[in-house]
């Protein structure tokens, strides 16, 4: 009788057992890393993003260091009729043999190399994305942790501040800010965009702090005489790092979409700086005659945003301890066999975990803030 009971234990128990065996003896960081690297979408996203970064910065060079791409994006002679792309497909795909040619992405009507322009634009957009998310992350974490830790009047004040920023749609403030700063310097522009994108992060961090500050280990630290700053930095922040990393990642995709949208509306990056949104805006009327002018910059925006979103999704799965993975059938069967061989006590210990909902999209879903670019 007891063997038949053991032969069909509840699935939950088995999954827990598999999970426990998987992570036995690993530190939190190792578990997170493992879970992240198991998420195929996130890995593909990470690889794509890295490839884009390397391509953009190595081809056109950074600052004084020249890149390997010889064109500069300056006007020149038009090679193909209309400036069509010179890249040709390999013979097995019906082309004339594989070649990059001089202008693989094509040229515009005055002979500027689109590959160079797109790479420069990608550089700008990536740089702005990074600055925005760093600034928003620092402000958001600072505001959120002060507000959540000290509560009281400071909390009210800071939360009114976030309400204030949320009241006006980001794209509207962004347009006004772009009007003031974008013509001057892309870096300043990015910093000020970061200054308007922090509220969603601040709210999440505050919520996290509000729960964590009531936990026993915080009490223990306080009793041991730790100062507020020590509790915040050494005890609470490391525990809130998951929320922060995940929502900062999601914020990055909001940031790049916001920047490109503003540049598209011509409230963002101004020439001579190149931005992907600006390129699309310049070339939108050329769509019917020179579609490549329009496709490439858009493709790069989509690729960056998509891979950042996938990385965020993978990180969320990795950091969320409630995240439930359904193990493969083979794993389940193996666990069942092992389970029969072992004492049942091991499993009972693990079944205390509540069957938590899959929080893939929900928990931090709004972390990137409301979609600004409608």
């Amino acid at each position, binding site marked *: 009788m007891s063997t038949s009971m053991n032969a069909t234990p509840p699935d939950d128990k088995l999954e827990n057992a598999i999970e426990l065996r998987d992570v036995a003896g690993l530190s939190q960081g190792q578990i997170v890393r493992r879970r992240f690297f198991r998420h195929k*979408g996130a890995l593909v996203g990470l690889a794509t993003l890295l490839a884009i970064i390397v391509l953009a910065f190595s081809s056109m060079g950074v600052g004084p260091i020249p890149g390997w791409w010889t064109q500069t994006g300056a006007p020149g002679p038009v090679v193909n009729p209309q400036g069509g792309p010179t890249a040709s497909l390999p013979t097995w795909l019906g082309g004339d043999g594989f070649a990059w040619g001089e202008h693989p992405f094509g040229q515009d009507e005055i002979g500027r190399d689109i590959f160079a322009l797109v790479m420069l634009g990608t550089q700008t957009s990536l740089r702005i994305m990074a600055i925005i998310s760093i600034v928003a992350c620092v402000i958001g974490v600072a505001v959120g942790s002060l507000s959540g830790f000290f509560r009281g009047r400071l909390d009210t004040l800071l939360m*009114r501040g976030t*309400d*204030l920023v*949320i*009241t*006006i*749609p980001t*794209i*509207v*403030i962004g*347009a*006004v*800010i772009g*009007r*003031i700063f974008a013509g001057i310097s892309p870096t300043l522009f990015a910093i000020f965009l970061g200054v308007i994108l922090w509220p969603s992060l601040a709210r999440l961090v505050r919520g996290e702090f509000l729960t964590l500050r009531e936990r026993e280990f915080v009490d223990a630290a306080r009793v041991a005489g730790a100062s507020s700053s020590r509790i915040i930095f050494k005890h609470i922040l490391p525990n809130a790092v998951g929320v922060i990393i995940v929502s900062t990642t999601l914020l990055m*995709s909001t940031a790049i*979409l916001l920047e*490109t*949208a503003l540049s*598209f*509306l011509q*409230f963002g990056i101004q020439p001579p700086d190149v931005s992907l*949104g600006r390129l*699309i*805006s310049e070339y*939108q009327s050329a*769509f*019917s005659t020179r579609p490549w002018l*329009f496709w490439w910059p*858009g493709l790069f*925006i*989509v690729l960056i*945003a*998509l891979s*950042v*979103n*996938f990385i965020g*999704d993978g990180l969320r799965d990795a950091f969320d301890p409630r995240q439930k993975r*359904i193990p493969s059938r083979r794993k389940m069967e193996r666990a069942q066999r092992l389970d029969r061989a072992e004492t049942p006590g091991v499993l009972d210990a693990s079944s205390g975990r509540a*069957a*938590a*909902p*899959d*929080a*893939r*999209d*929900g*928990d931090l*879903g709004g972390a990137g803030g*409301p*979609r600004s*670019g*409608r």
Partner: protein
Amino acid sequence: MLTFLTRRVLAGLVTLFVALFLMYLLVDAAMDPLADLRQSTAPNKAQLIDQRIEQLQLDVNPVVRFFGWLGNAVTGDFGVAWRTGQAVTVLISRAIGSTLELVTAATLLSLVLGVAVGIVSALRQYAAFDYIIIFVSFLLYSLPSFWVAVLLKQWGAIGFNDFLGDPVISWVVIAAIALLSGLLWMLAVGGGGRRRVQTLVVAAAATFAMFAFLQLTNWWLQPRVGPVLLAVLGVAAALAIVAIIAGLQNRRALYASLTTVALGVVLFFPMQQVFDALPLSNWLLAGLGLVTIAVGLLIGYLFGGPDRGVSARAAALTAFVVGVLIVADQVMQVWPPYYDALRSRPIPTFGDRTPNLGGNFWVGILDSLTHLLLPTLTLILIAFAAYTRYSRSSMLEVMNQDYIRTARAKGLPERVVVVRHGFRNTLIPLATIVPIDVITLIGGAVITETVFARPGMGLLFVESLRNAEIEPVMAYLMITAALAIIANIVADIVYAVVDPRIRLDA
């Protein structure tokens, strides 16, 4: 409740004031009303500049100017857009109308589609359908809306107009579409191997039949609903509605809905005369819609039985669908003359009306619908992704609750568990997001409106900011900010209404 409202409204007013003050300073810094004069070569340049400085009070400190503006705005005087001399109130009221059209259509459609797909996706968690939906929603969420908008404009509109010039789809393409839709339905419905094959065949055949019908009757150029199609679509809608909200074994609900369809088909021809006789307007049409729903409710109620509410609801929904189909037929009747009037390019890429079109009420509706098509599609693509993700995760959360297990354990059919216990609770978190979404969207879909040159709130803001006209920008900001604050209060109240565990006294 009252304390809550008072407190929130007061806090909101303070927030509004501070936000407007800061934005006034920012907008003032962003604008340079003298830019065009500085570059002018007019001989009386200095005089012109002085004139404008005086006109716009540019020599006054912006803080002082803000209070002057605020004083006027509070009394309802938003000033004039100085370049054109138009009153801001007129500009704004015109823009809000255009924006509302766009936003209502887009939000409703994306909400219905997104929630439905999200829930099905959650019910098929970790199945192929779920993974496809996750990927598609990620992709849509990552699309820059301006890119999609330009793409739709340059490609969708022109492509579709070209297609209408010679509306023939090759049978191979139709077969491929049918197979694709069959596959999607198969993955969405799920079930065992036999059920899957059945779904695949039925869905593919239905899609194929539909396209064949459209093709063979030259429907693209002469669209009609007609009594026969009305009956077929009405019965299909009735079956679907009853199957979801009452279950097909609830015969009373089924018969009530079918009666409603029959009534609709019978009234089809008389309604043509009625529509001709009535002085039509949007309000009248909305009134007729309400009457239709009331008739549906009445039919369901009269069928009686122990659970009248369910029959009434099913019949009312069916009545609404039938009513929409009858109106759609009226709109379709004016398609051929409209098509000719626009010289065979019926899908426009800019504006919200064709100027000097003439024609009757239905032509007006058709015209605004064709103008709405592409911008709405743009907005739907993005909002759909967000709603799918929200409703999927919300549904997953709900379906893991204990009360779902209880409902299953006491032997309720799966439909009841999903629709009554699952779906309703899924809507709770959505109820807090939707009001905020809708009301913030009234601030205009800035990018979509700009690309499609729809004269809505977003475009008004962009144009005024470019033209350095501070009055319309501030009026726009005042309205959006106030609406955002109201939206947040409304969301809290809605939350308390739909979830009795939340109380507003605190």
